[in-house]
């Protein structure tokens, strides 16, 4: 008995390391970190599903490395946003990493896992799937995967993200207020788009069904 207790005492700190990060991330999500970072759920929802009306993006189920880089880039200014920059700066590097892991592990919120009813514009579909090669514009899905479900750590999912969020990001790439894209691929592509095209393509992706949890890359 004593030996078992001793063994447990030895193992406890190891197990606690992992759980501590998760606990602290869950706590920051609900309460903030007490050092200036607001609770994430205030904007991104209790389940990490985002808010369609305000254009706050879904974080649940996104790639952890992608999420962590976004937080790091908000902190260092490669991605600008009046709300997210102060929050990211108020988080420690460890807290940013823990939050990225936390959201990556969250299941897809149930209310998002269904096809949207709206019929998106044909122009949006054409740009999303075929692009316009007379302007060196590939179809968005050539990198963001068919249906916009995303690929790995560098090509995030667009399917089911709020249209207002996709629009704001395309404008940010255009204006250079977001410039943390590898090889400047998005800045280059976004600069070719008209305001009408941005609206159409954002609407198409927002209306794409999200895949069931487990089939996301």
């Amino acid at each position: 008995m004593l030996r078992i207790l001793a063994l447990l005492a030895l193992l406890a700190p190891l197990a606690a390391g992992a759980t501590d990060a998760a606990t602290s991330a869950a706590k920051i999500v609900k309460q903030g970190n007490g050092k200036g970072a607001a609770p994430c759920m205030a904007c991104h929802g209790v389940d990490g599903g985002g808010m369609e009306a305000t254009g706050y993006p879904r974080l649940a189920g996104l790639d952890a490395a992608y999420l962590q880089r976004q937080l790091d880039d908000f902190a260092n200014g490669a991605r600008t946003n009046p709300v997210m920059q102060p929050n990211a700066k108020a988080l420690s590097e460890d807290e940013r990493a823990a939050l990225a892991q936390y959201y990556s592990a969250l299941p897809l919120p149930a209310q998002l896992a269904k096809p949207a009813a709206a019929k998106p514009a044909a122009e949006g579909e054409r740009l999303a799937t075929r692009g316009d090669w007379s302007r060196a514009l590939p179809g968005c899905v050539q990198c963001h995967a068919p249906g916009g479900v995303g690929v790995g750590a560098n090509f995030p999912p667009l399917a089911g993200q709020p249209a207002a969020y996709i629009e704001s990001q395309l404008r940010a790439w255009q204006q250079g207020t977001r410039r943390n894209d590898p090889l400047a691929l998005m800045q280059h592509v976004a600069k070719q788009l008209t305001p009408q095209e941005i609206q159409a393509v954002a609407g198409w992706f927002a209306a794409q069904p999200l895949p069931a949890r487990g089939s996301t890359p």
Partner: protein
Amino acid sequence: MKHLPIALLGTLVLAACSHPASEAPVAAKPAPAASVAKTTSEPTQAKAPPAFTPPAEAEIPAGPLGDEIRRGMAIFTDTPAHAHDYVGNGLSCSNCHLDAGRLANSAPLWGAWGVYPQYRKKNGRVNSFGERLQGCFRYSMNGKAPPLDSDVIVALQTYAWWMAKGAPTGVKLAGAGYPKQGFKPPQPPDYARGAAVYAKDCALCHGADGQGQQVNGRNVFPPLWGPQSFNWGAGMHQLDNAAAFIKANMPLSRGGTLSDQDAWDVAMYMDAHERPQDPRYAGDVAATRAKYHDTPMSLYGTTVNGHLLGSGAAK
């Protein structure tokens, strides 16, 4: 053993095919992918090849002929899904013929249709367009040739015919093929420099290991070497083809941004990796090289980094 002489040959012929930068500056640089055929004519040439713009997709007619054209386009853009029996890897035609086969300087279908039938040194006889398509399946798709009267070949031919509607026949059009005429490396291509270019500009999409990236069992970014890529008989394994394609079209959406040297170096890096065996394999690598790859543009049967290329080919 034959390894050493072949390795030397590989080095020598590679060096021989390049020109000193001072002597012969590159005559015609490939145009970036964005340009339309009509804008690429070279002012120095007495007779510029005629320009052509393919019909818009919205002009595909209704009815059975239109259905066949659309079926050809579907096969072209998602070949494993629509021509499954003939594809041995996960590649699609549109991986190397961008914009569903429409893009100038990306070997567009409208540039190929009118120059067949054609005598090809590759097999020593006159090939119909259908036979040329069979070659794509055998080599680039590492699969097997669909019969000439199969629905796959007929649909692809119909799609190509439609796209070339109104183009002159028997004439090389501006933007046909890959822009490799006069496109030479300033210095002989180099594996180590190519590896650095690859890591910086290619690995993001094609992966550090060259195996592409897949979602739900389907390529989003195609593998560039290894068992799921094109085999040693495919045109893209030749350095001049690969360098010209890369220069004009890669990274996707940023065609024309790599230097000529970078394009050649990274083409050599890609084509100095092992890939599926040439289906014409003649019993040993040296014999196969002598018979089918006796050109400085092929690394098959040469030794790179101590490995005899073609000897460890994936099936």
